[in-house]
Protein backbone atom coordinates (compact mmCIF):
# COMPACT_ATOMS: atom_id res chain seq x y z
CA UNK A 1 0.00 0.00 0.00
CA UNK A 2 3.04 2.20 0.15
CA UNK A 3 3.48 2.82 -3.53
CA UNK A 4 1.70 5.90 -4.87
CA UNK A 5 -0.28 5.05 -7.91
CA UNK A 6 -1.67 7.35 -10.51
CA UNK A 7 1.33 9.62 -10.79
CA UNK A 8 3.76 7.08 -12.09
CA UNK A 9 3.20 4.57 -14.84
CA UNK A 10 1.53 1.69 -13.06
CA UNK A 11 3.35 -1.63 -13.14
CA UNK A 12 1.33 -4.72 -13.89
CA UNK A 13 1.08 -5.87 -10.28
CA UNK A 14 -0.30 -2.50 -9.15
CA UNK A 15 -3.27 -3.06 -11.42
CA UNK A 16 -3.79 -6.43 -9.80
CA UNK A 17 -3.80 -4.73 -6.39
CA UNK A 18 -6.43 -2.25 -7.55
CA UNK A 19 -8.62 -5.02 -8.88
CA UNK A 20 -8.72 -6.63 -5.46
CA UNK A 21 -10.09 -3.52 -3.83
CA UNK A 22 -9.56 0.20 -3.49
CA UNK A 23 -6.45 1.42 -1.76
CA UNK A 24 -7.47 3.71 1.07
CA UNK A 25 -4.65 5.03 3.20
CA UNK A 26 -2.09 5.09 0.43
CA UNK A 27 -3.73 7.81 -1.61
CA UNK A 28 -1.01 10.19 -2.65
CA UNK A 29 -2.92 11.73 -5.50
CA UNK A 30 -5.08 14.54 -4.21
CA UNK A 31 -8.74 13.61 -4.47
CA UNK A 32 -8.45 10.79 -6.95
CA UNK A 33 -12.21 10.31 -7.02
CA UNK A 34 -12.73 13.70 -8.56
CA UNK A 35 -11.31 12.64 -11.89
CA UNK A 36 -13.84 9.84 -12.15
CA UNK A 37 -16.77 12.22 -11.99
CA UNK A 38 -16.46 13.16 -15.61
CA UNK A 39 -17.63 9.77 -16.82
CA UNK A 40 -21.40 9.50 -16.67
CA UNK A 41 -22.07 6.16 -15.02
CA UNK A 42 -25.20 4.72 -13.54
CA UNK A 43 -24.37 5.58 -9.94
CA UNK A 44 -23.93 9.27 -10.80
CA UNK A 45 -27.29 9.33 -12.56
CA UNK A 46 -28.93 7.55 -9.63
CA UNK A 47 -27.29 9.95 -7.19
CA UNK A 48 -28.52 12.95 -9.14
CA UNK A 49 -32.10 11.64 -9.27
CA UNK A 50 -32.09 10.74 -5.57
CA UNK A 51 -30.55 14.08 -4.59
CA UNK A 52 -33.25 15.91 -6.54
CA UNK A 53 -35.82 13.73 -4.77
CA UNK A 54 -34.37 14.38 -1.32
CA UNK A 55 -33.89 18.13 -1.66
CA UNK A 56 -36.99 18.78 -3.76
CA UNK A 57 -39.24 16.83 -1.43
CA UNK A 58 -37.57 18.49 1.56
CA UNK A 59 -38.29 21.95 0.18
CA UNK A 60 -41.85 20.83 -0.61
CA UNK A 61 -42.25 19.71 3.02
CA UNK A 62 -41.49 23.14 4.42
CA UNK A 63 -43.29 25.21 1.79
CA UNK A 64 -46.54 23.36 1.00
CA UNK A 65 -49.61 24.93 2.55
CA UNK A 66 -51.57 21.78 3.36
CA UNK A 67 -49.88 19.73 6.06
CA UNK A 68 -51.09 16.42 4.60
CA UNK A 69 -49.23 17.26 1.40
CA UNK A 70 -46.17 18.07 3.51
CA UNK A 71 -46.36 14.65 5.15
CA UNK A 72 -46.54 12.91 1.76
CA UNK A 73 -43.56 14.93 0.55
CA UNK A 74 -41.75 13.87 3.72
CA UNK A 75 -42.37 10.24 2.81
CA UNK A 76 -40.90 10.85 -0.68
CA UNK A 77 -37.88 12.51 0.96
CA UNK A 78 -37.35 9.55 3.33
CA UNK A 79 -37.73 7.05 0.47
CA UNK A 80 -35.15 8.87 -1.64
CA UNK A 81 -32.82 8.87 1.36
CA UNK A 82 -33.24 5.10 1.65
CA UNK A 83 -32.17 4.82 -1.99
CA UNK A 84 -29.18 7.02 -1.22
CA UNK A 85 -28.14 4.74 1.64
CA UNK A 86 -28.37 1.75 -0.69
CA UNK A 87 -26.25 3.65 -3.22
CA UNK A 88 -23.68 4.27 -0.47
CA UNK A 89 -23.43 0.54 0.10
CA UNK A 90 -25.26 0.42 3.45
CA UNK A 91 -28.24 -1.87 2.76
CA UNK A 92 -28.98 -2.44 6.45
CA UNK A 93 -29.34 1.31 7.01
CA UNK A 94 -31.54 1.56 3.92
CA UNK A 95 -33.77 -1.25 5.24
CA UNK A 96 -33.96 0.40 8.66
CA UNK A 97 -34.82 3.70 6.98
CA UNK A 98 -37.73 2.08 5.13
CA UNK A 99 -38.93 0.23 8.24
CA UNK A 100 -38.56 3.02 10.81
CA UNK A 101 -39.09 6.23 8.86
CA UNK A 102 -41.31 5.18 5.96
CA UNK A 103 -43.13 2.56 7.97
CA UNK A 104 -43.41 3.77 11.53
CA UNK A 105 -42.71 7.50 11.83
CA UNK A 106 -44.64 8.51 8.70
CA UNK A 107 -47.72 6.58 9.83
CA UNK A 108 -47.40 8.10 13.31
CA UNK A 109 -47.23 11.62 11.87
CA UNK A 110 -50.13 10.98 9.48
CA UNK A 111 -52.20 9.71 12.41
CA UNK A 112 -51.32 12.78 14.45
CA UNK A 113 -52.35 15.04 11.56
CA UNK A 114 -55.59 13.09 11.16
CA UNK A 115 -56.37 13.42 14.88
CA UNK A 116 -55.62 17.11 15.16
CA UNK A 117 -56.46 18.87 11.91
CA UNK A 118 -60.01 20.01 11.45
CA UNK A 119 -60.74 19.33 7.81
CA UNK A 120 -61.83 22.84 6.95
CA UNK A 121 -60.98 24.41 3.64
CA UNK A 122 -59.65 27.70 4.96
CA UNK A 123 -56.08 26.82 5.88
CA UNK A 124 -54.24 29.19 8.20
CA UNK A 125 -51.23 31.11 6.99
CA UNK A 126 -48.37 28.60 6.96
CA UNK A 127 -45.50 30.86 7.89
CA UNK A 128 -44.54 32.52 11.13
CA UNK A 129 -43.74 36.21 11.08
CA UNK A 130 -40.06 35.36 11.65
CA UNK A 131 -39.87 34.00 8.09
CA UNK A 132 -37.06 36.35 6.94
CA UNK A 133 -34.91 35.49 9.96
CA UNK A 134 -35.47 31.79 9.30
CA UNK A 135 -34.44 32.23 5.68
CA UNK A 136 -31.25 34.05 6.68
CA UNK A 137 -30.37 31.43 9.32
CA UNK A 138 -31.00 28.52 6.93
CA UNK A 139 -28.89 30.12 4.21
CA UNK A 140 -26.14 30.82 6.75
CA UNK A 141 -26.19 27.19 7.94
CA UNK A 142 -25.97 25.89 4.39
CA UNK A 143 -23.31 28.41 3.46
CA UNK A 144 -21.10 27.62 6.44
CA UNK A 145 -21.41 23.84 6.21
CA UNK A 146 -21.07 23.84 2.43
CA UNK A 147 -18.03 26.10 2.61
CA UNK A 148 -16.45 23.81 5.21
CA UNK A 149 -17.17 20.74 3.07
CA UNK A 150 -15.66 22.29 -0.05
CA UNK A 151 -12.66 23.80 1.76
CA UNK A 152 -11.71 20.59 3.53
CA UNK A 153 -9.24 18.38 1.74
CA UNK A 154 -10.73 14.90 2.19
CA UNK A 155 -7.36 13.28 1.63
CA UNK A 156 -8.32 9.93 3.08
CA UNK A 157 -11.58 9.70 1.17
CA UNK A 158 -11.18 7.03 -1.43
CA UNK A 159 -13.93 5.26 -3.25
CA UNK A 160 -17.07 4.35 -1.40
CA UNK A 161 -17.07 0.80 -0.04
CA UNK A 162 -20.13 -1.01 1.22
CA UNK A 163 -20.41 -1.96 4.87
CA UNK A 164 -20.93 -5.65 5.50
CA UNK A 165 -24.16 -6.42 7.33
CA UNK A 166 -22.53 -9.13 9.45
CA UNK A 167 -19.77 -6.75 10.55
CA UNK A 168 -22.34 -4.11 11.55
CA UNK A 169 -24.34 -6.68 13.51
CA UNK A 170 -21.24 -7.86 15.32
CA UNK A 171 -20.28 -4.29 16.15
CA UNK A 172 -23.75 -3.49 17.50
CA UNK A 173 -23.78 -6.43 19.87
CA UNK A 174 -20.16 -6.33 21.01
CA UNK A 175 -18.48 -2.94 20.70
CA UNK A 176 -21.66 -0.88 20.98
CA UNK A 177 -23.59 -3.17 23.33
CA UNK A 178 -23.91 -0.52 26.06
CA UNK A 179 -25.48 2.17 23.82
CA UNK A 180 -27.75 -0.53 22.41
CA UNK A 181 -29.04 -1.39 25.88
CA UNK A 182 -29.39 2.28 26.81
CA UNK A 183 -31.48 2.83 23.68
CA UNK A 184 -33.78 -0.03 24.67
CA UNK A 185 -34.26 1.68 28.03
CA UNK A 186 -34.87 5.01 26.29
CA UNK A 187 -37.54 3.50 24.07
CA UNK A 188 -39.25 1.98 27.12
CA UNK A 189 -39.26 5.41 28.80
CA UNK A 190 -40.61 6.99 25.61
CA UNK A 191 -43.44 4.45 25.39
CA UNK A 192 -44.47 5.01 29.02
CA UNK A 193 -44.16 8.77 28.69
CA UNK A 194 -46.20 8.99 25.51
CA UNK A 195 -48.96 6.79 26.95
CA UNK A 196 -49.08 9.02 30.01
CA UNK A 197 -49.16 12.21 27.91
CA UNK A 198 -51.75 10.97 25.43
CA UNK A 199 -54.21 9.83 28.09
CA UNK A 200 -57.23 12.04 28.63
CA UNK A 201 -57.49 13.43 32.17
CA UNK A 202 -61.11 12.34 32.62
CA UNK A 203 -60.13 8.71 32.13
CA UNK A 204 -58.15 9.00 35.36
CA UNK A 205 -61.16 10.11 37.31
CA UNK A 206 -63.34 7.41 35.83
CA UNK A 207 -60.82 4.79 36.90
CA UNK A 208 -60.80 6.00 40.50
Amino acid sequence: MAEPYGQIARPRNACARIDRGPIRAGHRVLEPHRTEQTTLDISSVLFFLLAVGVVGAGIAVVTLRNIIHSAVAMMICFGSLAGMYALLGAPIVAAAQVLIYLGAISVLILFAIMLTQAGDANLPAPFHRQLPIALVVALAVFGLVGWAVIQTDWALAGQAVGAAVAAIATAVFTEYALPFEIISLLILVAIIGSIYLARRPEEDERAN
Partner: protein
Amino acid sequence: MVSLEAYLLVSALLFAVGTFGFMARRNAILMLISIELMFNAVNLSLVAFNAHLPPDANAGAVFALMVMAVAAAEVTVGLALVIAIIRTRQTAEVDQYSDLKE
Protein backbone atom coordinates in the same frame (compact mmCIF):
# COMPACT_ATOMS: atom_id res chain seq x y z
CA MET B 1 -18.46 7.07 -8.49
CA VAL B 2 -19.99 9.96 -6.60
CA SER B 3 -17.65 11.93 -4.37
CA LEU B 4 -17.97 12.39 -0.63
CA GLU B 5 -18.47 16.13 -1.08
CA ALA B 6 -21.63 15.60 -3.12
CA TYR B 7 -23.26 13.57 -0.37
CA LEU B 8 -22.17 16.07 2.28
CA LEU B 9 -23.57 18.98 0.26
CA VAL B 10 -26.93 17.22 -0.10
CA SER B 11 -26.83 16.59 3.65
CA ALA B 12 -26.05 20.24 4.39
CA LEU B 13 -28.86 21.40 2.09
CA LEU B 14 -31.37 19.07 3.75
CA PHE B 15 -30.27 20.25 7.19
CA ALA B 16 -30.70 23.89 6.14
CA VAL B 17 -34.17 23.12 4.77
CA GLY B 18 -35.05 21.47 8.09
CA THR B 19 -33.77 24.50 10.01
CA PHE B 20 -35.85 26.80 7.84
CA GLY B 21 -38.97 24.68 8.34
CA PHE B 22 -38.48 24.53 12.09
CA MET B 23 -38.13 28.31 12.39
CA ALA B 24 -40.57 29.50 9.76
CA ARG B 25 -43.63 27.24 9.99
CA ARG B 26 -46.44 27.86 12.45
CA ASN B 27 -47.78 24.33 12.69
CA ALA B 28 -46.46 22.31 15.63
CA ILE B 29 -46.56 18.98 13.78
CA LEU B 30 -44.67 20.47 10.85
CA MET B 31 -41.98 21.66 13.23
CA LEU B 32 -41.57 18.03 14.34
CA ILE B 33 -41.36 16.94 10.69
CA SER B 34 -38.62 19.55 10.17
CA ILE B 35 -36.69 18.07 13.11
CA GLU B 36 -36.98 14.68 11.40
CA LEU B 37 -35.52 16.21 8.23
CA MET B 38 -32.54 17.44 10.24
CA PHE B 39 -32.07 13.98 11.82
CA ASN B 40 -32.08 12.47 8.34
CA ALA B 41 -29.54 14.99 7.07
CA VAL B 42 -27.16 14.05 9.88
CA ASN B 43 -27.77 10.35 9.19
CA LEU B 44 -26.90 10.85 5.53
CA SER B 45 -23.59 12.48 6.42
CA LEU B 46 -22.83 9.69 8.93
CA VAL B 47 -23.44 6.95 6.34
CA ALA B 48 -21.48 8.86 3.69
CA PHE B 49 -18.48 9.24 6.02
CA ASN B 50 -18.75 5.56 6.92
CA ALA B 51 -18.68 4.49 3.29
CA HIS B 52 -15.45 6.39 2.75
CA LEU B 53 -13.68 4.98 5.79
CA PRO B 54 -11.63 1.79 5.73
CA PRO B 55 -13.89 -1.24 5.24
CA ASP B 56 -13.41 -2.66 8.75
CA ALA B 57 -14.75 0.53 10.36
CA ASN B 58 -18.54 0.68 10.55
CA ALA B 59 -19.13 3.14 13.36
CA GLY B 60 -21.05 5.45 11.02
CA ALA B 61 -23.65 2.86 10.07
CA VAL B 62 -24.07 1.82 13.73
CA PHE B 63 -24.46 5.48 14.72
CA ALA B 64 -27.04 5.99 11.98
CA LEU B 65 -29.09 3.05 13.25
CA MET B 66 -28.95 4.41 16.79
CA VAL B 67 -29.93 7.90 15.63
CA MET B 68 -32.96 6.32 13.96
CA ALA B 69 -33.97 4.61 17.22
CA VAL B 70 -33.57 7.84 19.18
CA ALA B 71 -35.50 9.75 16.51
CA ALA B 72 -38.35 7.26 16.76
CA ALA B 73 -38.47 7.74 20.55
CA GLU B 74 -38.29 11.51 20.12
CA VAL B 75 -41.11 11.70 17.61
CA THR B 76 -43.29 9.48 19.80
CA VAL B 77 -42.97 11.73 22.84
CA GLY B 78 -43.08 14.87 20.70
CA LEU B 79 -46.32 13.92 18.97
CA ALA B 80 -47.89 12.91 22.29
CA LEU B 81 -46.96 16.33 23.67
CA VAL B 82 -48.27 18.13 20.58
CA ILE B 83 -51.56 16.22 20.69
CA ALA B 84 -51.93 17.00 24.39
CA ILE B 85 -51.30 20.71 23.74
CA ILE B 86 -53.67 20.79 20.78
CA ARG B 87 -56.34 19.11 22.88
CA THR B 88 -56.18 21.81 25.54
CA ARG B 89 -55.52 24.82 23.29
CA GLN B 90 -57.69 23.79 20.30
CA THR B 91 -55.07 25.01 17.83
CA ALA B 92 -51.85 23.74 16.26
CA GLU B 93 -50.39 27.19 15.58
CA VAL B 94 -47.38 27.68 17.81
CA ASP B 95 -47.55 31.48 17.86
CA GLN B 96 -50.86 31.24 19.70
CA TYR B 97 -49.27 29.33 22.59
CA SER B 98 -48.55 32.52 24.51
CA ASP B 99 -49.88 31.82 28.01
CA LEU B 100 -46.51 32.37 29.65
CA LYS B 101 -45.97 35.69 27.90
CA GLU B 102 -49.29 37.24 28.80
